[in-house]
């Protein structure tokens, strides 16, 4: 009889996992190339900072000559009685999951890569830097007493300021419409004996820590002045881009530069300095007078941040719609004044791609004549350009040449 049987030990055989590891490596490379797309993902921008983001990553495409999947029908079998016109499956909608069509199109497989926001942040920040940083800091004398001088969002748990953290959570909840608070909070640290009657769920971004300086490293004093147009002309897209950019900017600064201050300014026809929360959450209305923001920026700089001791980084995001040519000229003059004391001035104009075409706003045209190399302007027409904007504003190395654009 020509049959035989055996059983051997395959435990050392590793070819499959080894090749799969190579595939994984290539997928991660592909992710790096798509970072622009991924970081503008809604799940991240609207997260509270602690989520693990599930990003659907296709397995790598294996290109070959194939039929167009949308054109290629097929043959299937039913339970009986199928008639012409019956619908047997549906394409998943935009942004939905695989739905019922898992396996419908061979070759399109999703496997969710999971990243924490910190992991993504590390990938993003790898190439970012505070540009044109100058040695303007003062030496700090080591304090004899440790004095708690500051309250920040990052710190060590023993320094957790419970009261402020809980207050922050309450504030956030109230602003979110005062929805019913959850039953438990997951942070043991927030359990004060005389806690408010309802317990709130604390998020990472609510936490506040008392911090103190104890090192003698020379400090690079730096301040970022974040300005944002909140006039009525800023639509959903413009709002989202501004928010996405500043989300990553703030995160970048807080992670890498512990001593950076951030000043938040919103403007419509008037400008005002606001808290970080308000900056991210205020609604839009009103007309636009950009000069109001630049004026406020300049005044704050004069009052609080003398240029000989501070590295200053003003940024402004807008859709370019301004009051009129007079104001455009006024803005240009203000920028030229501000820029004498700034390391760079970043201007980002946002307009969604189909409406942009070759349109140049009045503001953009006025700014074209600014010659200072510290002035960096760019346009954003799509979500995946946020990453490019981050890289353009936060670069390492020398100032770029200012080209007439």
């Amino acid at each position, binding site marked *: *009889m*020509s*049959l*035989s*049987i*055996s*059983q*051997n030990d*395959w*435990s050392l*055989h590793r*070819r*499959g*996992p*080894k*090749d*799969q590891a*190579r*595939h*994984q490596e*290539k997928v991660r490379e592909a992710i790096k190339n798509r970072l622009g797309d991924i970081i503008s993902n809604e799940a991240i921008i609207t997260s509270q900072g602690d989520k693990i983001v599930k990003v659907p990553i296709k*397995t*790598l*495409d*294996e*290109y*070959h*000559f*194939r*039929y*167009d*999947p*949308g*054109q*290629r*029908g*097929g*043959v*299937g*079998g*039913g*339970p*009986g*009685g*199928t*008639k*012409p*016109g*019956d*619908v*047997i*499956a*549906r*394409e998943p*909608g935009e942004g939905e999951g695989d739905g019922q*069509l898992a*396996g*419908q199109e061979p070759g399109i*497989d999703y*496997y969710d890569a999971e990243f924490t926001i910190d992991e993504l942040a590390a990938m993003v920040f790898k190439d970012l830097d505070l540009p044109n940083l100058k040695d303007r800091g003062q030496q700090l004398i080591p304090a004899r007493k440790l004095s708690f001088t500051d309250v920040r969002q990052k710190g060590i748990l023993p320094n957790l300021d419970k009261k402020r953290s809980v207050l922050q959570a309450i504030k956030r909840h109230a602003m979110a419409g005062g929805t019913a608070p959850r039953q438990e909070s997951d942070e043991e640290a927030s359990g004060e004996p005389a806690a408010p009657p309802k317990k709130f769920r604390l998020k990472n971004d609510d936490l506040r820590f008392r911090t103190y300086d104890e090192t003698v490293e020379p400090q690079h004093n730096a301040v970022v002045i974040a300005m944002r147009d909140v006039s009525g002309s800023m639509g959903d897209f413009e709002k989202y881009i501004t928010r996405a950019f500043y989300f990553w900017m703030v995160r970048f600064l807080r992670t890498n530069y512990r001593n950076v201050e951030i000043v938040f300014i919103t403007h419509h026809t008037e400008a005002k300095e606001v808290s970080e929360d308000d900056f991210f959450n205020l609604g839009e209305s009103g007309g636009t007078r950009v000069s109001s923001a630049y004026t406020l920026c300049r005044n704050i700089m004069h009052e609080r941040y003398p240029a000989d001791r501070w590295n200053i980084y003003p940024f402004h995001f807008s859709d370019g719609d301004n009051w009129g040519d007079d104001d455009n000229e006024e803005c240009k003059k203000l920028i030229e004044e501000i820029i004498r004391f700034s390391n760079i001035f970043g201007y980002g104009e946002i307009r969604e791609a189909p409406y942009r075409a070759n349109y140049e706003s009045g503001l953009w045209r006025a700014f074209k004549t600014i010659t200072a190399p510290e002035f960096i302007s760019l346009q954003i027409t799509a979500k995946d350009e946020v990453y490019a904007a981050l890289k353009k504003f936060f670069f390492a190395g020398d100032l770029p040449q200012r080209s007439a654009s």
Partner: protein
Amino acid sequence: MTTQIDNNPEKTMGEVWDVAQQFGLDPFPTHFEIVPAAMVYEFGAYGLPGRFSHWTHGKAYYQMKTMYDHGLSKIYELVINANPSQAFLLETNSALENKMVMAHVLGHTDFFKNSLIFSPTNRQMPESVAVHANRIAAYEFTHGSLAVERFLDAVLSLQRHISLTPRNRPEDDERRLTPEPDPLTTPYDDIMGMGVIAAPRETPERSRKIPLEPEDDLMYFLIRHARDLEDWQRDILAIVREEMLYFLPQMRTKIINEGWASLWHYRIMEALDLAPTEYAQFSTMHAGVVSPGPRTRVNPYYLGYKVLLDIEKRWNEPTEEEQRSLGRTPGQGRAKLFEVRETESDQTLLRKYLTEDLVHDLDLYSYHLNKSTGEWTVDNGDWKHTRDQLVASLDNDGAPLIEVLDGDYHRNRELYLIHRHGGTDIDPQYAAKTLEYLYLIWNRAVHLEARFEQRNFLLSYDGHEHRSTRI
């Protein structure tokens, strides 16, 4: 529960073998190897044990493993076309499962041995594949694994474009194997072709034209006529082509082979003396194997099984009409089955033997995508339409038919391909990427003539940019 095969596997095999022989099966000598699940889906992903490394195999391995780990699929067995054949059994199979699997495997190895479509295949392929893998590993060592991977990426993208049909290629005799020196080599060669607007296909002089006739074995063409390849690259092309030629018959006979093996595992198990509980368990397993499948795809096991059963029945009980006009005599079912297994492929089987009754009983239908609603909808059309759609989907083993028309396009050694449109457009985005791969191998501009939405286009790639021209 013990997961080991029963403690007298030789005896089990003996019983199965005896019954199989009584039924007239004639398999290759078969060796069974008991392996962990990881090995079964690894061999499934690579096609053969010992095959060369590549990330695409890793990806397939991962997908199979995931499906298995989530209980979405189970590969009971894997059997290799070779003489002697090798079959791998899941070490977690129960004794009953293995009985069924052995019977199923013998059906396969009988098919490998007796199907004419398999007669040109290399029955020592497992050894050859290991030799190939060693050569490729040596190239990785010498030239770097990245360089080899990049080249393999390109070669694998084209591997389906081969032909099993042997033929004479007259131009092969006229050309020496060593590449001829360029008739005109100047420092400006690379810009000579630029800016040339794609003209309709020129009719070059007959003596210079390569290929003389449209060539559907693109891989062969590249091996013979791509000039700027190093020896190791040409070897890799030849290796991949040879391995794909080996697999092609299996791809071409999936439905009939699985139907055949399912039919025989059923009959063999019935003939074995199973206890009632065993029989009930077996019935469940069998039903799982030959189940109809999802609404969007027909299960090849199910289709093949039903068609073969139908053939046997019809030839056992021919109608009055058939007896009179075709001279059929009753009781020829078994003989007809054995004849069919020898001569038919999936496509010819369905074209000849998928009847109106079968289409109706199995509730088969063809469907298309309604682009505006995003719904996959059943076509209007009768059973013939369904049958014809199914048969057409098997054209060229499911791959678009690409032919080489000219290896010296523009008198500039550019490569001109055409997609022979059979009713469905190809994917233009994938095509563009594949042209980039082709360029990597051919090293001169490459062109593909194809029809999209009823209009003819010429897709071109010159190493720097893509162009798409209406023709």
